């Protein structure tokens, strides 16, 4: 299929609460999909269903032999656990029969120093840790990246660098990228399509069609300023 992912009539419920209802969209190979919406709209829940962590109704079809790299929004890990960034990366690399040079390469790509990677992960700053998670996701040459607010906690230059990196990787490796973001300027700049999850309605389409004041007001329940780039 030309799509790396096809989702049909997806519904997810926790007990009697329906978090996502009758959601359908697809992602073309090599394209990027931004998932936006207010807090509690089910963006992270959608990602968890896509990776098989949550039960759902409907259909989720990944293209054959898809490798997924996933960067979660947050982790429930004690800060004093003596696991270094290198322990974490080596665990992934050895599973995929990767090598230490490959680890060095992804660390360089995301801008994490060797010294920082040998620190206990609980002592890393939020930004360093986020970049470590991106490095982990890149190991094993995935064809799809799922990024849940990848630039959260990263300073402004770091965000720019990470966005450019992901954009460059997407072009160089024909990666398909699905990312959750609250930064609408980044969404309009990098996304091929936007999936909008609101409490009352959902919509899907190119940024020019979705990131309009009327649609955003309906999704967020209040006026949202957003300028869509013309290029």
């Amino acid at each position, binding site marked *: 299929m030309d799509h790396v992912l096809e989702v049909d009539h997806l519904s997810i419920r926790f*007990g009697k609460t329906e978090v996502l209802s009758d959601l359908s969209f697809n992602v073309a190979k090599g394209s990027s999909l931004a998932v936006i919406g207010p807090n509690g709209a089910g963006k992270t829940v959608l990602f*968890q269903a896509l*990776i*098989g*962590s949550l039960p759902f109704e409907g259909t989720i079809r990944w293209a054959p032999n898809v490798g*997924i*790299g*996933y960067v*979660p929004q947050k*982790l429930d*890990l*004690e800060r*004093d*656990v*003596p*696991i*270094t960034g*290198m*322990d*974490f990366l*080596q*665990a*992934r690399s*050895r*599973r*995929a029969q990767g090598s230490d040079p490959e680890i060095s390469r992804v660390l360089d790509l995301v801008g994490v120093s060797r010294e920082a990677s*040998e620190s*206990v*992960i609980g002592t890393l700053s939020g930004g360093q840790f986020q970049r470590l*998670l991106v490095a*982990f*996701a890149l190991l*094993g040459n995935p064809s799809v990246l*799922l990024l849940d607010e990848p630039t959260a906690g990263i300073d402004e230059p770091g965000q720019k660098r990470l966005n450019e990196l992901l954009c460059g990787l997407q072009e160089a490796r024909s990666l398909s990228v699905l990312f959750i973001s609250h930064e609408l300027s980044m969404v309009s700049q990098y996304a091929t399509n936007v999936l909008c999850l609101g409490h009352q309605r959902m919509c899907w389409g190119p940024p020019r069609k979705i990131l309009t004041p009327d649609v955003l007001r309906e999704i967020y329940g209040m006026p949202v300023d957003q300028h869509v780039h013309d290029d």
Partner: protein
Amino acid sequence: MIESLVLSITVAIAAGLVGCFAVMRRMALAADALSHVALPGIGVALALHIHPIFGAAAMLFFGALMVWAVEGKARVGTETVIGVLFSAALAVGSMMMTGEDLVGALFGGAGILSWPEILFGAGAAILVVSFVVTQRNNLVVILVSPDIARTAGINVRLLNLFYLQAFALTIALGLRYLGVLLMGALIIIPAATAKRVATNLTGMLVTAVLVAVAATVAGTWLATWLHRETGPLIVTVAACIFLVSFLRR
């Protein structure tokens, strides 16, 4: 005597390795409670005139299965269920035994090792150590994020089940020396000590094994010297090493 010491060192190595992941997964209390479930198994085995270790191992197998099943149901309070059921197991087991049998089951005791015990102990210890060593990378990824582990192709549910069974098997291995009440301590205290002093995963695994083995050897030697039971002395030595670790930072 030599077989007993070698076997207890092997058990200590397994306990140190398994304990590291138990402590990092924040299941120290659950681990302690799980060991209690062995008691009814020992009681039934004694009543049926079969070796107590097999009754304990069978009950621990089902206990670990229960923890695994409860873990899969996010809305059920795992620790509450474990606390209630496994304390109840301790109560039921205590009613099934009296006198020396009960004291031995609770605190462990010296005695001549039988061949079934030696063979079971050696085989099970090798199995547990092999599991932790070969699955170390997968266990680390699951520890950091089960969701990331799934996308890396790791069968999280299955590996969690195997880990819990390795844990239960380790408890069964040490019941002879430390009993139902103290075996959880040999798994948790060395790992908790290692977590305090280690700066990476390999350091933690090695330190936990060294502390567990040192406590076992020193405790056994002290027990012979002081004419006391082995189990309480092993745990006391391990606890002393843990307290000393506070001096480091």
